[in-house]
């Protein structure tokens, strides 16, 4: 049972010079890269040249699937994965090729893709994948909204859909501005991840930190340290911090029962006694979207919309 600990779906991305060299080398050696017209795009590993408007595309990152489908790019193969509901159609029409962590290399190779998009949970596979076809590492990590926007623009350039990309970027910027305006004077917030009866808190430098930093929602407990997986906290901690808002991410809701289980876990006098609890300012975010496709354009627009709507519904508290 110990081995479960290794299977964390969000291991730290490693950007090594070797990685980058291997990707570049593979790109240079691939005949397709020489034949087709190439375009230079920004990736997690830096700028790389890839063939423009590739025909057959394998995408092994959920955020990338989100953004590419928003651009109207047709995706030929995806990982075997239970997608967030809004991506179900995309997944249904593409061929599954192994898991995020262990792609089915044979299936991918026999597809003969002209481009593979990987990153995030599949980042460790970028190097082996680049032996099959040009592979770009489109990991979104430190600055979710900033990198999410950059990836979207890169995809726009790559698939010659710059217009649509610019439109979506404009929508994103407007949504962020709207959220910032809504957050003005509405108090502070605490991000809580609920997982099987236990809770952990996430700070502004965590994977969900952009909800604080980009949307201008102050942290209720500014000392929360950088922790990818959050800090395990007790219900007492939440009561003591007494946030004005609680943003809830339900880890268990990946199976479709949004919010139900998390609200049962948070149903305690200690949570109810906080300002958030008393003012009905506990916001259950659609977790599959935020947790699994974080950084995808639809994921970001959807989450920002949820937060903005909740904030706008409340009177200024202080």
């Amino acid at each position, binding site marked *: 049972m110990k081995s479960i600990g290794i299977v964390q779906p969000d291991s730290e991305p490693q950007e090594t010079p070797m990685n980058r060299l291997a990707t570049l080398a593979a790109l240079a050696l691939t005949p397709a890269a020489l034949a087709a017209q190439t375009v230079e795009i920004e990736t997690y590993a830096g700028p790389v040249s890839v063939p423009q408007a590739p025909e057959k595309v394998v995408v092994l990152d959920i955020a990338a699937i989100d953004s590419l489908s928003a651009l109207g790019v047709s995706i030929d193969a995806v990982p075997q994965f239970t997608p967030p509901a809004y991506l179900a159609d995309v997944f249904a029409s593409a061929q599954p090729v192994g898991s995020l962590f262990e792609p089915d290399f044979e299936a991918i190779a026999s597809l003969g893709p002209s481009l593979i998009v990987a990153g995030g949970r599949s980042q460790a596979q970028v190097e082996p994948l680049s032996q099959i076809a040009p592979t770009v590492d489109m990991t979104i990590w430190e600055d979710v909204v900033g990198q999410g926007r950059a990836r979207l623009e890169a995809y726009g350039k790559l698939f010659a859909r710059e217009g649509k990309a610019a439109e979506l970027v404009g929508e994103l910027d407007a949504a962020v501005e709207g959220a910032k305006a809504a957050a003005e004077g509405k108090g502070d917030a605490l991000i809580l991840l609920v997982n099987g009866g*236990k809770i952990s808190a996430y700070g502004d430098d965590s994977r969900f930190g952009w909800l604080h930093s980009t949307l201008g929602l102050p942290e209720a407990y500014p000392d929360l340290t950088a922790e990818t997986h959050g800090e395990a906290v007790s219900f007492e901690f939440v009561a*003591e911090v007494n946030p004005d808002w609680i943003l809830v991410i339900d880890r268990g809701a990946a199976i479709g029962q949004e919010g139900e289980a998390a609200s049962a876990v948070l149903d305690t006098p*200690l949570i109810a006694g906080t300002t958030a609890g008393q003012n009905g300012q506990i916001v259950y975010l659609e977790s599959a979207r935020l947790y699994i496709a974080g950084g995808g354009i639809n994921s970001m627009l959807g989450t920002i919309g949820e937060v903005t709507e909740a904030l706008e519904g409340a009177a200024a508290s202080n």
Partner: protein
Amino acid sequence: MKPVTLWLAAGLILAALICASVLIGAASLFSGDVDGGLLIAVSRLPRTLAALLAGAGLALAGVVVQMAVQNRLVEPGLVGTPEAAMLGLLAVTLIAPGASMMVKMSVAAAAALVGTLCFMALARHVPRRDPVLLPLVGLIYGGILGAAALWVAWTTDLVQYLGTWMSGEFSGVLAGRYELLWIVAVLAPLLYLAADRITLLGLGEDAARSLGLNYRQTLLAGLLLVAIITAAVVVTVGAIPFVGLVVPNIISRLRGDNLRRNLPLTAWLGASAVLACDILGRLIRWPYEIPAGTIFAVFGAGVFLWLLNAAPRRAHA
């Protein structure tokens, strides 16, 4: 040490730990915005009791398993009970995610019971001449159940969910969410009544039978106790490894194998050790938490290694 002195010392240590546990936590009892009385009633007291009950229960379950299989290097986790409980929890999470905590707990306890009964059915066919064989079978059996749980969790994106049951901690304990653990308080006196029979179990089937013990019935009853206690702990706070292994061994090294005399002390040491680990886990990274199971594994493993190498001091065997 005289019994009076011993029990006085034990009582004092326990009282000190309980006081510390009630006073220490992420929220401030006296100066904060949180009502101190509410805090104690909803969070501190339940948490303290949960640690005591879980610790005592796991230690007692460890004694029974060690006697039942006549092997000091096993613990309840080796008969597949925690894994079976996890399977039950997974099933109820998938079928009725909105079910109340109490329903989930009950389903998991039932599954653990079924899992342990299957192990006992399996154990019937295991030759008893080599005492290592049974724990090995249990290890494989638990491994198969664990693999099944992992597979279910993997295909349904619940791997991290499963993880919360594998690391025993008390951060999620509140009034209304640990009460299943009172089962331990109900079962412990029963175990005490049956202590002499359980001691006989430890002599092996032939010796026990020749002394007039209904071997199979006693074994069944003992393992049922183990199943219920382990399931209650897994579903309420998660698996805490080592407790059932380390605590009975420490007591037995120091005081021999007279169960009726040792059971209260075993329960005390289990309870105190787990509570102490929980208090430490609350303090080390205050106001965040480190699982009590993790702390216990660190200290428990150290103590156990020392014990294995230290010379036994059996005053009364």
